[in-house]
């Protein structure tokens, strides 16, 4: 189901968060989406990619996917500019938000226009150091991580912040400028490894 290709990191032997920092090479991966299609990071070489850690039953995901549509709106705004957006669910089997059936339903429930990739072993999540749902990673066209952290600056489960860090990072990358805020503390539910 899944082939994890690691880029210079010894991750498989260590069942814990390794993590990747801004400026480092984004770990490669191949994961299967809920529609059965395989997606590899390598497929998007030369493009800007956003990774969104996802758990359909986390209140913070619902905040941004259901109640405020932050993710859908941000994704739509930048899809026109060639930005790729992938949702990754690292919930282990039996944990909250796990499984094909639940995530197929979530795609409909949240009208998600992006692939939802399943990572039940958590290997990709741990390679990136994904801590929360959501936890956002923006990968520049050169394959380096340009931003890692929260989607915005309001850590609550209901209200929106005034700054969308992902949008700001994408604006900078598309303009060929440095990303001003490369790292923030993610917030949300813990990833259910």
């Amino acid at each position, binding site marked *: 189901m899944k082939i994890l290709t690691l880029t210079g990191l010894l991750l498989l032997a260590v069942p814990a968060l390794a993590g990747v920092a801004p400026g480092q090479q984004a770990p490669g991966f191949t994961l299967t989406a809920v529609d059965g299609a395989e997606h590899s990071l390598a497929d998007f070489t030369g493009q800007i990619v956003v990774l969104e850690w996802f758990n359909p039953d*986390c209140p913070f995901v619902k905040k941004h996917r259901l109640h405020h549509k932050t993710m859908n709106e941000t994704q739509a705004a930048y899809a026109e500019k060639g930005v790729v957006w992938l949702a990754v669910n690292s919930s282990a089997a039996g944990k909250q938000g796990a499984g094909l059936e639940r995530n197929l339903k979530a795609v409909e429930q949240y009208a998600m226009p992006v692939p939802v990739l399943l990572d039940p072993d958590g290997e990709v999540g*741990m390679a990136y150091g994904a*801590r929360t749902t959501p936890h956002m990673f923006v990968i520049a066209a050169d394959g380096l991580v340009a931003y890692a952290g929260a989607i915005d600056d309001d850590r*609550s*489960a209901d209200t929106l912040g005034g700054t969308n860090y992902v949008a700001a990072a994408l604006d900078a990358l598309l303009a060929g400028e440095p990303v001003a805020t490369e790292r923030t503390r993610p*917030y949300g*539910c*813990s*990833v259910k*490894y």
Partner: protein
Amino acid sequence: MRFFPALIIILLLTACGHNDARRAAGPPVLMAARVLPAATDGTVRVCWYFDLAADWHLYWPGLNDSGFPPSLKLDLPEGWSARPLRWPVPVRHELPGGLLDHVYDQPLVVLEQDLVPPDPVAAAGADIGARWRWLACREECVPGDTTLVVTVPYRLEAAAKVLPGAEPVYPAPLPAGSFTADWTGADLEIRAPGARRLRFFPYEDCGRLADLLADGQAQGDLLRLRCVPDGDTLGPVRGLLQVETDDDVLTGPVEVPITTHIPDRGTS
């Protein structure tokens, strides 16, 4: 859970023999509050109670990988002011995948807060309004909120300030000389002679630490925090230090200011 008359909840908690058995049913969190009569200096103390169902936890307002701590918006009478909340000592909560949170997982969590009225004599009878929001988690997470209104009593109550079964432990300054903190390269070495275990709970504004999951607790009297330089500086290191000896467990604030980091040559 929008509104709970606080005194009713207190009675319910007490009547249910809260200290005898943990609540297994109902919502993850029930809230209550009690206001103590004004002290001689006019200060009014409020105790905020979070009654947690079995297996649920709330978050300490320090450095955590997930969740968020309860938040409070007070509605005070004109001229009143509020001092900072007193948060009890948290516990480490390790999760699969190497995640670490600092949480409250006991049945009853009590936060204290002192309020200062403009006129100490006229404090009695004043209504204190509070809007609380929280995130309670076990496997899943559930946000919650409630609004409480409590009235400052006119005279001393016979009851203790805490509910039966609630013995909150708050941080307090550690005894002078009970620990040292010294830089060794990019590592901060905290020693507490006589300790059999040390724990460090970082505040939210603590400088970057390399691996809090591994470094945040240690057997014996030495705890080594590997810090991540920010440019040519390290720290600050701010948080709570917990010193466990054969006889006692003491938890108090520790603050080590920013220091210059000179790679390969040690630090000042």
